[in-house]
């Protein structure tokens, strides 16, 4: 019997299961505000790793991984305690990676996972090339550690918590923020719930 999908958001029947690597077609049904259980291969890079990847591209050198079809998580975990693949692993603020994101989206990146707004440039690049942005919840970092089956450093080990990782995840819970159809939960969510002066 297949184990029940990990569903901390209680999405039930509306939960969309995704397995990375991904095609644009697989992303088409996603809608802003929808809840996703992501499995498969998830790459991890944050500030310093992005700066290095941009330098590598500028110097005509290869990236630590081919972004085509990949899912990328903005995250820097705590050290793995003995017997675990990883420590706490919630998202970091995505906008700090905005200056670099289009470089990867142009090369076929299909999914970004983080927290917080993306810039208009990144959103335009996502719509143009077919990439979605999902939000994870930082304060669920210990819970998320249980959804990571494997973790390995694949580049820039000297960056410590900022090294590039490849994770294998099962039912990693996330919420669709920017879908392929122009939806943006960080705009539509607050607009729906604002009231008083803020709603004006």
């Amino acid at each position, binding site marked *: 019997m297949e184990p029940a999908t990990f569903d*901390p*958001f*209680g*999405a039930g029947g509306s939960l969309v299961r995704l397995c990375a690597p991904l095609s644009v077609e697989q992303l088409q049904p996603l809608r802003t*505000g929808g*809840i996703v259980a992501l499995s498969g291969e998830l790459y991890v890079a944050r500030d*310093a790793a992005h700066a290095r990847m941009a330098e590598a591209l500028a110097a005509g050198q290869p990236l630590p991984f081919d972004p085509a079809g990949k899912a990328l998580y903005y*995250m*820097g*975990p*705590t*050290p*793995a*305690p003995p017997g675990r693949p990883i*420590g*706490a*692993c*919630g998202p*970091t*603020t995505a*906008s700090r990676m905005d200056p670099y994101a289009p470089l990867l989206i142009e090369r076929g990146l299909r999914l970004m996972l983080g*927290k*917080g*707004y993306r810039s208009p440039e990144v959103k335009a690049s996502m719509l143009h090339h077919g990439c979605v942005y999902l*939000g994870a*919840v*930082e*304060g*669920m*970092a*210990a*819970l998320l*550690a*249980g959804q990571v089956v494997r973790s390995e450093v694949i580049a820039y080990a000297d960056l*410590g*918590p900022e090294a590039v990782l490849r994770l294998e995840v099962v039912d990693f*819970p996330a*919420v669709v923020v920017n879908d392929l159809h122009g939806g943006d*939960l*960080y705009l*539509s*969510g*607050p*607009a*729906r*719930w*604002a*009231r*008083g*002066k*803020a*709603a004006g």
Partner: protein
Amino acid sequence: MTERLAKRAGDKVAKWKGLIVSGSSASGVRDIPAEEVTRRVRELTLRASIEVPADHRAALCRALGAEESPLGCAVLRGLLANADVAARERLPICQDTGYAVVFCELGQDVHLVGGSLQAAVDEGVRQAWAEGYLRPSLVASPLERRNTGDNTPAFLHLDMVEGDQMRLTVLAKGCGCDNMSALAMLTPAQGRDGVIEFVVETIRKAGPKASPPVTVGVGLGGSFDRAALLAKKALTRESGRPHPDPDVALLEAELLARINDLGIGPAGFGGRITALAVHVETFPTHIAALPVAVNLDCHTHRVATGVV
């Protein structure tokens, strides 16, 4: 090692002699070994990083009762479930284990023996970081950005108080929300309304980046530096306990209502609860000034207090 201990013991005797020679009353002074400070800081840092404090958990439960957005409720339930998992499996509540802000109320009758206060606190932080598998998240130079490896130094703030005790409060401060903090040197004419506008606008701009629902610390008055410190310190107050001054408490309530009208909601996905609490601390200021500082703490709010 024994040599060092012998020297330390000798130093201690010399210090006592010094006290007697200078005529001070030795009876009022309490020796605290630096190791004891280290031990306490280690324990408080680990507790703050792994166990969600009862007042914050209660605030999350109240938020769950008040939230109307289904996705907002789902996030709040996720935060509570995370608190259980972290405590049970001894995992950090959040991967951004932050910087260790240590507020020390130092009784003026305390005599620290066997090392400096900063070194003793740093050692406690270093041990907690290693023992708790916390993430080293500090870089030594803001521009060169090389990791210090052990999350030291601690950001130590010292207040001299009466008595012979040392009260330590560790705030494990995440940075996503710290980055969204702001300070304004308003003019006196901008007054209360100006303060409210600035605080609410700061939360609006932070949006999902601060990982709401946030705890909001506001430092009102003082000077540029004092306002910022008050804002940070305000975060350590028991969640939602109103300021004893009824006017300030009223300001806190009005700010909380205005912030929650923003609709940002848990994780910024939309909802009624954007802030769990607003804590305002005030201080006398200059006739020309109205400084206001806003320091945010994300939905992972880590504080622990203990006495040495």
